[in-house]
């Protein structure tokens, strides 16, 4: 088998309710599979934990973004008003820090918001127009009303036959092979 371009990308099992999916995901993980992915039309509580995903780094990214934005915002105003072109307006000091706070705040929020969105998309590997899962016809319901469990080919325990039998044992609505 070609390691980078497998013929079989993995197996996709379809479930009817989120509870079934969580249960199936837990059993798959207990069975030793690690490259497991679950797909659902809406976020399901406990599902990420069931497939072994614990911590997102989004919060740290957003915090850093906000901090940099805030410092940058204030620095910009300080540079412009004190260093680069000091101008006496209304007798106010050059470093009118009370008046610099609103813009500093806006810059903080703007940078943090961009950090949140770009960080989320980057960590999720989006945008990604093509994915082998889209080849499976049933998968179009993953955004509507069905819940899917997917085991990828590069899992250490993955075996075309055994994995198939294992997933069948979870009583899915349907089971599909995913081809790239």
């Amino acid at each position, binding site marked *: 088998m070609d390691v980078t371009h497998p013929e079989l990308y993995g197996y996709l099992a379809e479930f009817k309710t989120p509870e079934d999916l969580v249960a199936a995901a837990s059993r798959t993980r207990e069975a030793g599979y690690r490259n497991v992915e679950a797909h659902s039309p809406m976020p399901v509580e406990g599902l990420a934990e069931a497939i072994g995903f614990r911590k997102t780094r989004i919060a740290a990214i957003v*915090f850093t973004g906000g901090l940099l934005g805030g410092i940058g915002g204030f620095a910009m105003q300080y540079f412009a008003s004190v260093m680069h072109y000091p101008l006496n307006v209304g*007798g*106010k000091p050059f470093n009118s820090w*009370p*008046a610099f*706070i609103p813009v500093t705040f806006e810059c903080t929020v703007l940078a943090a918001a961009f950090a949140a969105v770009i960080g989320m998309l980057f960590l999720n590997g989006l945008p990604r127009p093509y994915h082998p899962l889209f080849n499976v016809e049933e998968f179009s319901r993953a955004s509507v009303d069905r819940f899917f469990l997917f085991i990828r080919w590069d899992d250490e325990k993955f075996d075309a036959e055994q994995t198939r039998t294992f997933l069948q044992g979870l009583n899915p609505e349907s089971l599909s092979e995913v081809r790239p």
Partner: protein
Amino acid sequence: MSRFFGPNGNGNGDGLSGRLERIFRLSGLVGLVGLGLCLVGVLFDVQQVLRSYLMAYLFWLGPAIAGTMLLLLIHLAAGTWGVITRRPLEAAASTLVLMVPLYLPIAIGLGQIYPWAGAEHGSEAHAERDDGEAVAEHSAEPEDEIGGVQPEYTLDPEGAAVAATDDGHAAGFNHKEIWFNRAFFFGRAVGYFAIFGLLALAMTRWSAEQDRAENPWLPTRRLAAISGPGLLLAFLTATFLLFDWGMSLDPEWYSTLYGAMLIIGMGLQTFALTNIVVTLLTDAGTFEGLVTPKRLRDLGNLMLAFVMLWAYTTYSQFLIIWSGDLSEEIPWYLERSAHGWQYVAAFLVIFHFFLPFLVLLFRANKENTSRLRTISAVILGVHVVDVYWLLAPSLGYDSPVPHLFDLPALIGVGGLWVAAYCFFLNARPILAKNEPKLVELLASDRAHASHSRT
């Protein structure tokens, strides 16, 4: 003696009752000692004791006032946090009973406290400060002492300077004479106490009825019905209360935001206090698993919201007055940013806002009882400084060095307040067992528990 406290079994168990009773006695004793020291101080400097007492009084009035308001708020629109904090807030609201008699010294010493009633605060200090650059810049001709020819309320030298440089100011108006007419002033004070007393009474009584009633529907309805109009009334009343008792220390100065700003500070103070109590009770096992980390987080988040609101109102008022730079407004900030007060202001910016804000952003700090308690205690402590910064400069404190009597007054009023609080907290079960929200909450908890078992 032991049954004096919680006489007919409040359902909280002997352990908690005993502990509360010990705190009651200890703090009551501390309070009496503190007030005793103040009484001794009266022999030396009556006016200074009254100044210290006013600050202590307004600090401890906070939870009584804001407790009632938060209580109305939780009946109006609150989720789980309202169920958990309800009895502690009811206890806080009930302490108004104590605060009414404690107002008497202020009422008697009115002429020693409020400039419009004839009080003079630290006149030498003011004259000395007039040499300072900051003030000279802003009030064109700083004048020295003024005699009795001026109307009572312009005795403040800076105010007089304003009047001298700006003929338009106060010209032809006698509104302050009307507003600060003694009878009118005391009439309003009675009104404030009456309104808050009635609201607190209604909330606690109906809450007690809800506990006892066969069918708790009626008191529950009543509590919900009073909450909206009650909160409106309470907010207005508290605004004018703070105008009268706090803002009028500078009779020339005014700010439309002052009432709301101080109410929010009081709300933060009350929330910090309530969080301390709730976390202590949680650690003592009183809530039996009702206070989950997630619910603690809600309490932390609400406190965070108050921290942010405090910063928002404080900053808004500052920016507007700083930018406008008008002679009748800016002295209030000049007083509070000179002779060491600027360091207090910086301290508040850091410890009343930035530090709690940053610490409360992190989940782990909100979900752990002892950490949340520590943060709340810091906020409560720093809020003393906030009240001090707001009031003391108007009371002739030229520099932020506290006076000898400030601490006895603070722990004097505070000791009695804590004693009253413990008494009321112990008077009833910690959870209002008939509250529909609690019933629903416990049912939901049970359902989740059985669900996760299967």
